[in-house]
């Protein structure tokens, strides 16, 4: 499988960067929401809720990133496994709603 650079892109550091920046983003949104809640009440809480949703989605995005990486790298077996994990998570979201 050909890749862009001379060495193949490594999956692990990319996932590390994704989780690191995702954590900062979600935390910042939650902190902003809580700060706004002091002044504006419910509206601020809604912003904080968005931050919580970002946190819940972050690991799901991580699975999606792995899925894309495996498919691009031609590792179809692991691509299929990632797709399976993704569908179980989405099924849980779907069935969990009342």
């Amino acid at each position, binding site marked *: 499988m050909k890749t862009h650079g001379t060495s193949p892109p490594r999956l692990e550091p990319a996932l590390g960067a994704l989780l690191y920046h*995702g*954590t900062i983003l*979600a935390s910042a949104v*939650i902190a902003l929401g*809580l700060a706004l809640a002091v002044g504006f009440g419910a509206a601020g809480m809604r912003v904080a809720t968005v931050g919580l949703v970002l946190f819940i*989605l*972050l690991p799901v995005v991580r699975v999606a990133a792995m899925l894309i990486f495996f498919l691009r790298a031609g590792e179809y077996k692991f691509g299929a496994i990632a797709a399976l994990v993704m569908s179980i998570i989405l099924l849980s979201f779907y069935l*969990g709603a009342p």
Partner: protein
Amino acid sequence: MHGGLELWLFAVALGTSMLGGLLGMASGIFIVPVLTMFGRIDLHTAIGASLISVIACSCAGAAPFLKGGLTNVRLAILLETATTCGALCGVFLAGLIPTRYLLFIFALILLLSAQQMMARRKVPSYASDRDSGYSVERLPLGMTLMYGAGLMSALLGIGSGVLKIPAMDTALRLPIKVSSATSNFMIGVTAAASAGAYFARGDILTSVAAPIALGSVLGAVLGARILMKLSGDKLRTMFVCILLILSAQMMLAAFGINLIERAP
């Protein structure tokens, strides 16, 4: 009083996540008992908030392990098929199992954690840390244990490191640092699978979960920093005591006795 409660939640999450980080586990196992018994927060709300904390701890702590090459991401995604399946089942059971049984199961898990912490993890002779060609063994047993870990995670709002790490140490025979790093990587996805369902059900209250999330991120980062500078023995003994006390408390609560004064 509303700002006061949030500060208290933030402090609880900060403290428990830091302690969790020191022990290489997520904070859920401490957060749920503290919230229900000292904060008088409903068990399902506590579990929902705890799942957020587990995700936050997992994501906040993952990067150094990934960059250091300790996390086995391919094994993780494979085992996640089992943990997310377990989480899916746990989400359903959580709605069906009466609260006092949940408290009882939780007490047992706390006891198991205390026992595990006392018996220090030994370095197996066949495994050296990091790469150097370790192999993954006994996968079916490992997958079964992972299913159980996912189930408990969704049921109790914990990271289930207590079940995942022995599964990887003894069933799969991975080096210790690899199993810790891989477990940390996996608990986020497992918790996310159930947290989404809890959120959809309205069991994740922003007023509780938001301060918990912030405290957890900060605690996880600080805990990991301190971990590098501490020898664990005294800490370990202290934790075994805390776990035993929490376990006894939850056991009593399961049988309807609560020593801490509680609103009717």
